[in-house]
């Protein structure tokens, strides 16, 4: 299970990078970025997983005293939550840029966006 | 050696003798030239007439104070060269002020007169004077190259720059002359001599008719007289210099006259045989054979 998650995550990362590097449409590039980001998150969680352990949520099934021995490492889980938020923010900023760029040039082709480099 | 006031009259006597020899040669050389052209030529004492005539000119003009001083510089340079030259080897009376300087002084004193004259001629405002000076300077820069090389070679050979000592080192027969002991340097020096004696093929500086006569175009009367005085002294100083460093110097006046006359004949003979070079041609000429000979001369020391 862990390996599948890790492999899947790695695949997502590669797809994402591939998308960012090859697609001409800005939106697709941003999607590529999202995939890359998501892949990272999957890898993150996958690496934090411990066999036969449960989610680090302390409730009635999981007493506080037993938590240390029965839950997976909570740190990656915490990290991934933050990372998701941040990834969202970055995606949002990227989209904001994409919108503004589209408004100013009426195109989403990334190869058109290279003004100012001819000097 | 220190200064002795008695040197002054003896030096002046030596100077006068040199002047007379110069005047004589100045009469003699055109005679030779004339004979080569199958003419009778001037009277041998003609330079004296011309000399007196120039001082008898009653009117004169001046273009300014540098113009006025030009001939003074010129003659001072010429006289200076004689005064710092040991004329007769072994003679206290005719060793002049040679103790105060050496070959280097001689070489640079040559330019004293040249520069003053050039400036005087320049102030006349005559474009031809300036052209003549420009030619002369351009030519002298290369004509000096073999001369300097020959001088260096001789100085290194005799381990001294002092003219008196070089003469002393050559005493004792023709086999000790630099001419024999260092023929390459001598040849170089003699080629250099051609360039500075104002004879064809290197007399484009004066180039009569083309730029009337170059630098002294505006000089006349007394000025010309002084320049003429220098024309008798200056070449003689050079000739004596060559005699001293290449041909064993002179132990009495007869030898001096003989050797001086013979050396003087060299540029004269070359002059009557060869036509005139343009300045750039003469520059290139000096940069070929004389330069190589000169380098060979110092390389052999």
């Amino acid at each position: 299970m862990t390996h599948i998650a890790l492999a899947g995550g790695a695949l997502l990362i590669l797809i994402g990078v591939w998308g960012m590097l090859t697609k001409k449409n800005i939106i697709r590039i941003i999607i590529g970025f999202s995939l890359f980001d998501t892949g990272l998150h999957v890898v993150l969680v996958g690496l934090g997983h411990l066999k036969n352990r449960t989610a680090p949520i302390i409730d009635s099934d999981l007493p506080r005293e037993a938590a240390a021995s029965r839950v997976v490492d909570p740190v990656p889980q915490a990290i991934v939550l933050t990372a998701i938020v941040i990834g969202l923010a970055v995606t949002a900023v990227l989209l904001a840029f994409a919108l503004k760029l589209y408004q100013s040039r009426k195109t989403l082709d990334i190869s058109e966006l290279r003004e100012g480099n001819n000097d | 050696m220190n200064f002795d006031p008695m040197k002054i009259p003896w030096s002046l006597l030596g100077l006068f003798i040199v002047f007379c020899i110069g005047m004589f040669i100045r009469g003699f050389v055109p005679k030779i030239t004339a004979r080569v052209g199958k003419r009778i030529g001037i009277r041998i004492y003609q330079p004296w007439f011309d000399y007196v005539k120039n001082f008898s000119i009653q009117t004169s003009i001046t273009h300014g104070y540098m113009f006025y001083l030009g001939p003074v510089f010129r003659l001072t340079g010429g006289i200076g060269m004689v005064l710092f030259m040991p004329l007769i080897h072994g003679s206290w009376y005719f060793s002049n002020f040679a103790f105060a300087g050496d070959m280097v002084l001689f070489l640079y004193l040559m330019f004293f007169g040249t520069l003053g004259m050039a400036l005087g001629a320049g102030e006349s405002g005559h474009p031809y004077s300036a052209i003549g000076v420009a030619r002369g300077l351009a030519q002298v820069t290369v004509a000096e190259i073999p001369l300097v090389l020959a001088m260096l070679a001789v100085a290194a050979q005799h381990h001294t720059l002092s003219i008196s000592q070089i003469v002393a080192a050559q005493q004792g027969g023709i086999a000790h002359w630099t001419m024999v002991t260092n023929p390459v340097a001598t040849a170089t020096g003699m080629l250099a001599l051609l360039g500075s004696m104002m004879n064809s093929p290197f007399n484009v500086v004066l180039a009569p008719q083309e730029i009337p006569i170059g630098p002294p175009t505006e000089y006349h009367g007394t000025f010309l007289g002084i320049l003429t005085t220098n024309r008798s002294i200056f070449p003689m100083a050079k000739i004596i210099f060559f005699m001293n460093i290449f041909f064993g110097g002179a132990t009495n006046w007869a030898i001096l006259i003989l050797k001086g006359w013979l050396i003087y004949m060299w540029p004269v003979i070359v002059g009557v045989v060869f036509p005139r070079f343009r300045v750039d041609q003469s520059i290139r000429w000096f940069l070929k054979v004389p330069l190589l000979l000169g380098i060979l001369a110092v390389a052999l020391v």
Partner: protein
Amino acid sequence: MTDKKYPSHEVTGPDGKTFTVTPMEDYYCQERPQVQKSANAVVEKFFNWARANSLWIVGFGTGCGAIEMRPLRTPRFDAYRYGINWRATPRQSNLFIISGYLSVKTLKRAIRVYEQMQGPKYVLGLGSCTINGGMYWDSYNTVKRLDYYLPVDAYITGCMPRPESLLDGFEELKKIIMAGEANGANLYAEKFDWYKANQKKIIKNWDMPDYSW
């Protein structure tokens, strides 16, 4: 004096100030020639002897007669042996040979050259043309009598005179000089106004100072 060739003009100096340049006054010396006193008699005799034996001719052939001077430098005639020499500049010459006819145009140059020679200086008129116009006696454009314009010391007659005549003329001139009678320069200075009047009468475009130093 007309200044057609050298009009006065306004010039702005490097400091921005404007001033007038009058070439005739600014470029040329305005002095008149002076009569030169001779030195003491003995010295003067000595000098005259030297002067007579050192005749330097200014190299300016004014007319056809100049062709007769050339042979003098050849082995056949060889004038050098008499102390005759040719100089390229009038500054250093003391003999001016007006060689043959003298057109008005050339006269102007001849006057300049003559005045630029330093005294004592001598003029030889060569050929009949310098005496009375010769074959150009009715030409509108040649000088008929040279000594109206320049003080002539001796004439050599003929049309053309042979080089031998020229040599003879030199010998005559030498005698005159030795006798101390070759005072052309002083004569010119003494009768300066007369000469100038004569010169200006026929030279219409007089555009030089009265005396070209």
